[in-house]
């Protein structure tokens, strides 16, 4: 088993790079899972937005308006200066800025309230549409009471009372409102790290064996060509399983509770299947790359493009529909879709579609192995 041993000796030379990726992944997934600890929502409540308010009004309507807005939204002070406001709005820390002038109550009572409030928004934003609608509603109701001859202060109070009416809103399915478990996030980013690890690890070893002089020397050795290749194959399988095991064990340590559910089991299978596909990609890369530098470039190209286009880094929902159509030609897309579906099921009987997604990823693995073989054959013919 010399070849098998050499396989791991070569791999040992690349251990630093591989370890760095594993450690960085671990750190990032811990950071992500600690930052996404949301509690599940039980009832629908409208989104709470951030409104910066400067209330200069000397009457009472301004205060009444602010306390109405406060029931649903977060009210904060207006940042000093235009640049600070621009910064805060750009980074979406403030959704809306409202300035209430000092003579607001007075002029509103005279029926000259139109365009008195100054609202600063990001043009065309949905959040501002919601806030503007709320402000309009309150003030229209108040003006209706005024028009009906009701005393101003009582009118503000009645308007606020009416605003307490809330709509009957329910979720279509009970589990729609549940947030995703941390295990989901742990497995979400696996395609990137698997692709990089496989291309840099497996690719580098196979590259070494394919070195012209070395392979010529190996071909005239006493060990048969088939036995050599079987040993390399075994090395590849062991490495792939090893990488997969490291991540599954990491998942057990970090998200133990999740891993003991059906979803956890299926996630582990999903990762295992994707690791086979990543090994296929690595095999393909090893055939076309000329040296280690090119392999490094390829690990970036395949790792990043499969992750971005497949919806690993950026949720698929954010992409336009035409991009999503292209995404279907990328194995990580099916991994991501499977990972999403896995969170929704309660038992293995419901997992019919998920097996189809697994099948898609395996098909891609086969396609990459085949493409690698083709390149290999063509190179041999040309040589």
């Amino acid at each position: 088993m010399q070849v098998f041993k050499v396989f791991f000796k070569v791999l040992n030379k690349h251990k630093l790079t591989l370890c760095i990726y594993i450690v960085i992944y671990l750190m990032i997934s811990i950071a992500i899972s600690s930052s996404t600890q949301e509690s599940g929502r039980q009832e629908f409540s409208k989104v709470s937005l951030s409104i910066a308010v400067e209330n200069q009004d000397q009457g009472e309507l301004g205060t009444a308006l602010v306390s109405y807005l406060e029931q649903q939204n977060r009210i904060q002070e207006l940042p000093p200066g235009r640049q600070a406001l621009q910064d805060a709005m750009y980074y979406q820390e403030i959704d809306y800025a409202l300035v209430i002038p000092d003579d607001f109550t007075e002029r509103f009572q005279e029926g000259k309230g139109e365009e008195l409030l100054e609202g600063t928004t990001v043009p065309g934003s949905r959040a501002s549409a919601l806030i503007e609608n709320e402000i309009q509603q309150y003030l229209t109701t108040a003006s209706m009471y005024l028009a009906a001859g009701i005393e101003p202060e009582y009118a503000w109070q009645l308007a606020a009372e009416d605003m307490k009416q809330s709509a009957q809103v329910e979720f279509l399915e009970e589990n729609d409102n549940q947030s995703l478990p941390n295990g989901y996030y742990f497995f979400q980013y696996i395609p990137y790290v698997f692709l990089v690890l496989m291309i840099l690890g497996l690719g580098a070893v196979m590259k070494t064996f394919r070195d012209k002089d070395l392979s010529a020397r190996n071909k005239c050795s006493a060990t048969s060509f088939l036995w050599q290749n079987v040993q390399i194959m075994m090395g590849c399988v062991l490495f792939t399983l090893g990488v997969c095991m490291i991540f599954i064990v990491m998942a057990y340590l970090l998200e133990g509770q999740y891993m003991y559910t059906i979803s956890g089991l299926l996630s582990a299978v999903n990762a295992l299947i994707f690791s086979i596909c990543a090994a296929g990609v690595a095999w393909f890369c090893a055939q076309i790359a000329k040296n280690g530098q090119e392999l490094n470039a390829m690990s970036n190209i395949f790792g990043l493009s499969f992750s971005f286009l497949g919806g690993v880094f950026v949720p698929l929902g954010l992409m336009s529909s035409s991009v999503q159509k292209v995404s279907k030609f990328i194995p990580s897309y099916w991994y991501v879709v499977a990972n999403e579906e896995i969170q929704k099921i309660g038992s293995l009987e419901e997992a019919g579609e998920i097996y189809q997604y697994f099948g898609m990823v395996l098909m891609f693995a086969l396609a990459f192995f085949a493409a690698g073989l083709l390149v290999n054959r063509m190179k041999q013919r040309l040589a």
Partner: protein
Amino acid sequence: MFWQLYQYSIKQTLRQKMTMFWILLFPIILGTLFRVSFGDYLDTTLVFHQIPVAYVAQEGADPSFEEVLNALEEENEMIQMIPADSGKAEELLKEKKVEGIYYNGESIRLAVEEQAVNESILSSVLEQYQRVKTTVEQIGRENPQAIPKALQLLKQQPQYLREISITDTPQNVMTDYFYALIAMNCLMGVTMGLEIVVGYKANLSNLAARRVSAGISRFGMLLPDLAAKFTIQYLCSVCSVCYLMYVMKISLGDKPGLLFLTVLVGSMTGIFLGFFIGGIGTYKKSMKEGICVCIMMLSSFLGGLMVGGIYRFLEKRAPLINRVNPASLMVNALYSLNIYEGYEKYTQCMVSLLVITALLGAGAFALIRRERYASI
């Protein structure tokens, strides 16, 4: 002599395929991936579109609610109503073709799939309807004669708000990723800067050892090399910026002149950073390469290439990093150019960047000047 060496250096660099890949192709690939992944972010998540909603009329439906919805669809263009039976409506909601379902029966209900801004707007529409009903009933109790007057007001819909837009240019927080990408592209010059030193210090390459024994001044060989690498770095960065602006149609502001000036200074910073790192000590080339890539990636990370909004986070917790990190300075310069009316902040960033570049350059020259090798 200068031009001859300059030409050679340009040819030599252009033939280094991997270098060209990293400084020209990689940013273009990454830019394309950014564009397809979240180029439509603004449109899909922030911009207001008519909200599609299914409408299911059941027994005992309130006809005036349907009228209100029709008005909202036709006059305000707020929602897009799709009448359906309840099975079809649920199907539409699951397929995400509609954002919610209004059931108009004994009572009026709204069903949704998630809790977000659009769903809140739909719930707000329903609330508004019920609130107006309550208000009219209340007025009926207090002063019934005033109902027509109040309803008149409701019809007029006086606008109490005067809307002010925060900037003239479209805002998209995702543009920050593209700024960071441009910054990374400029900083990729570190590998070029390092190449210059490798060709200059006799302990790093055979070429440099040969050059030491040449008849002309070593400084005379250094300058053309520096100029050539800088030219290529700048041109490659400009290419990828143009690609982002004109092919990927990403709005990077309406001041292309100043944008390219920022890229010019950024490229210079990148080259001198590599030049400086290369000049330190007698470590091997591979070690120095590792340090260069680490510093470049760390700088880009802090500039917001991997995690958006990190600039804002650092500004609150550790503002000093934003003042000295080249990538953050570039990102902030480009941001100020796009967002603010004045040039005050832009100038501040550019001056800081120039000072850093000058310090790096001066440091590098101080490190490599008067180096002599023993003749053995």
